[in-house]
């Protein structure tokens, strides 16, 4: 009995001291939770900007004159050095697990981002669920200082803007680090990263008065795609090109598609409910030919011209008309990308690799030069399912 008691107390003591989990504990008031990260290039290294939550402000019930986030910037020869350099500026140690957004400055992106990707995956505090973006035409540092309305934390605002718009608006795209790294590493595929930029005055944007205004004069936008070759940014696609890119890659979930009416007076807008794409490759005389079929299904959402929607023929005609318009747009985009960027962002090389591995081995090394010359045909088919809650458009009399 005595022995048991002794053993028990020894065990309890052992558990008490060893299982407390206090080894490297950090209380909430000892860490600075970072939500956004900006990476810029300097002359001899990197500029590292973190956007840190000001916990008292985020949770506050009363309106105060302090901002919900603070940014700290530090420079270093490597990213990790810069991160640790932050400790002499920020009062607490920066905690990176809640990062929502990593933004590369355009200059850094044009120089190549591969060196930074190592740190972003090697450090154990990073998770993999943050979005990656490039600050279009500006430094990432400036972008992170803009305060946004609605969402108190600007990095969150960018995160959610991108999340919603990638679901309901064709030009935008979410890129996560795992995708980015795989795309850079694999042959016959080049990455795109969505661009973020500001509208309005940056100085004003970093002031609290920006969010006191109803219209928030300075804000951030997320709707353009940066084309990369390897790990270097080489150019930007405009909104139409970005839309086509997403259609061809099968990324579109739901969007609005604007078409002109046949007589060029007024327009019809389609709410795209479903879109899919199928890429195939055939080899003729040793040359690859690519065929992309994009099928789009949607409902008529907005009619701004006189048209008789109640006829089956009209719908058929519209479908044909829309398909043609989209096909032209897609084909133009592909040839623009081939000419202007010479970067295989569509992954055509990868398609050959996956489906015709033997042939791929013969052309692999020359693919970069071959890509701008290959033949690609894109064919879009539009299907109209419903016409909304009203039948024909109203015939309003217009004042001449």
């Amino acid at each position: 009995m005595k022995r048991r008691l002794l053993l028990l107390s020894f065990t309890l003591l052992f558990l008490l001291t060893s299982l407390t989990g206090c080894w490297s504990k950090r209380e909430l008031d000892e860490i600075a939770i970072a939500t956004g990260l900006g990476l810029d290039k300097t002359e001899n290294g990197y500029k590292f900007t973190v956007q840190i939550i000001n916990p008292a402000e985020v949770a506050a019930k009363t309106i105060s004159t302090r901002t919900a986030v603070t940014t700290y910037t530090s420079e270093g020869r490597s990213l990790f050095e810069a991160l640790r350099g932050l400790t002499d500026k920020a009062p607490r140690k920066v905690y990176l697990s809640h990062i929502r957004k990593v933004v590369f400055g355009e200059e850094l992106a044009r120089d190549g981002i591969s060196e930074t990707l190592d740190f972003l995956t090697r450090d154990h505090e990073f998770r993999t669920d943050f979005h990656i973006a490039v600050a279009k035409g500006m430094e990432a540092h400036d972008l992170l200082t803009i305060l946004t309305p609605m969402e108190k934390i600007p990095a969150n605002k960018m995160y959610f803007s991108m999340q919603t718009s990638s679901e309901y608006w064709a030009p935008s795209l979410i890129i996560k680090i795992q995708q980015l790294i795989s795309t850079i590493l694999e042959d016959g595929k080049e990455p795109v990263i969505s661009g973020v930029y500001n509208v309005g005055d940056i100085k004003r944007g970093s002031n609290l008065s920006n969010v006191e205004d109803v219209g928030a004069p300075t804000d951030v936008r997320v709707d353009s795609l940066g084309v990369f070759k390897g790990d270097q940014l080489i150019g930007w696609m405009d909104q139409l090109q970005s839309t086509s890119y997403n259609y061809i890659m099968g990324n579109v979930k739901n969007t609005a598609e604007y078409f002109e009416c046949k007589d060029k007076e007024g327009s019809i807008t389609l709410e795209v409910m479903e879109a899919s794409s199928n890429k195939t490759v055939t080899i003729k005389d040793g040359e690859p030919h690519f065929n992309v079929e994009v099928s789009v299904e949607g409902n008529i959402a907005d009619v701004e011209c006189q048209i008789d929607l109640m006829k089956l023929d009209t719908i058929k005609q519209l479908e044909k008309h829309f398909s043609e318009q989209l096909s032209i747009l897609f084909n133009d985009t592909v040839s623009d990308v081939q000419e202007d960027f010479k970067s295989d962002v569509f992954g055509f090389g990868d398609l050959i690799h996956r489906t015709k591995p033997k042939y791929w081995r013969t052309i692999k090394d020359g693919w970069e030069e071959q890509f701008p010359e290959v033949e690609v045909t894109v064919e879009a088919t539009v299907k109209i399912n419903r016409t909304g809650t009203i039948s024909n458009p109203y015939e309003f009399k217009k004042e001449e």
Partner: protein
Amino acid sequence: MHGKEEINLRQFLLFLFLFVIGTSILLSPSSLANIAKESAWLSVVVGMMIGVAIILFYLLISIWYPDHNIVDLNRLLFGKWVGTIFTLFFIVFALVSAATVLWTIGHFMVTQMLHETPQPFIHILFMFVVIYGVYLGIETIARTSELLFPYVVLLLTIVFVFSIPSMNLNKIKPFFDIGAQDIVKGAWFDLSISTFPLMVLFMVYPKLVQEKKSVGKKVTIAYILAMLTILAATFITTTVLGVEYTHHHIYPTYVLAKTLNIEGLIQRIEVIIAVSWILTIFFKLSLYFYAAVTALSQVLKVNSYRSLTFPLGIFVIVLSLIVYPSSIYASEWNQTTWIYYSATFGVLYPLLIAIATLIRKLFKRS
């Protein structure tokens, strides 16, 4: 703690399952993606087919000698001196394996979760539980396995099932594009961590499990189920993360659990998922350790192996601290030395037993 210990067949099958997936669910996907690239999953399939043959071979040996464990066998077949030397080799093998497994879990915890905790501390904590478990006996461990098995299966099912939506088969195309040589090499590697060490289980099996009816079928099924789990882990990590990304990570299965996001509702659950690996590794480690301790006690003719658990446990902790100087060493060792080391005990040694048995039979007849 008196009398002969016994475990039933179901408990043995659970041991087999947990032992196979033990460390390999964490380690295999990365190395396989490196060796066999897009065909990593194929390597596991090939490994499974070879593995079934191996496992049945082990079983055959234990059917020949239903009342002998490895120590008895060595003495019976190779005589007192040579047999003892073989047994000592076996003990060293079990101890080194135990140390590497302990190192793996320690390294996993330190790199992925408890970044600032010193690794030895985790080793000590983990090993104390193992020592305690082995001290209480194999029956206790077996019952624990029955108790915890559902959790392991549940957690693994969660990762696997909810990863299905993010799978992209294109990432492992082209199928069969890699030479048969690399596939077999991958299979060999997978066997070396999952199957060959099962030899250690036969220290437990023949004497302790009394039920011998339709054992072959049940063991095969349990083994195939375990290998299917590894197949699923490899297949899913490579299709979700991509081959390159998988092989650049040390613990890709954990990264997979990190990416898990069910409609924004269930996310950031990787630590809960990791519990399942900690459990499987606990059993693998316990079985290695149990085999080493009981074998040594038989060699030393100690009445009860229990007095050896504590000193040998301390030895394993110390060994685990020096067994791998770094993770780079570990992965190189796994791919160069370990595959031969474990094959020596997993293939060569059983073959030797079979040959010795045949010779013995011949002599008896003449």
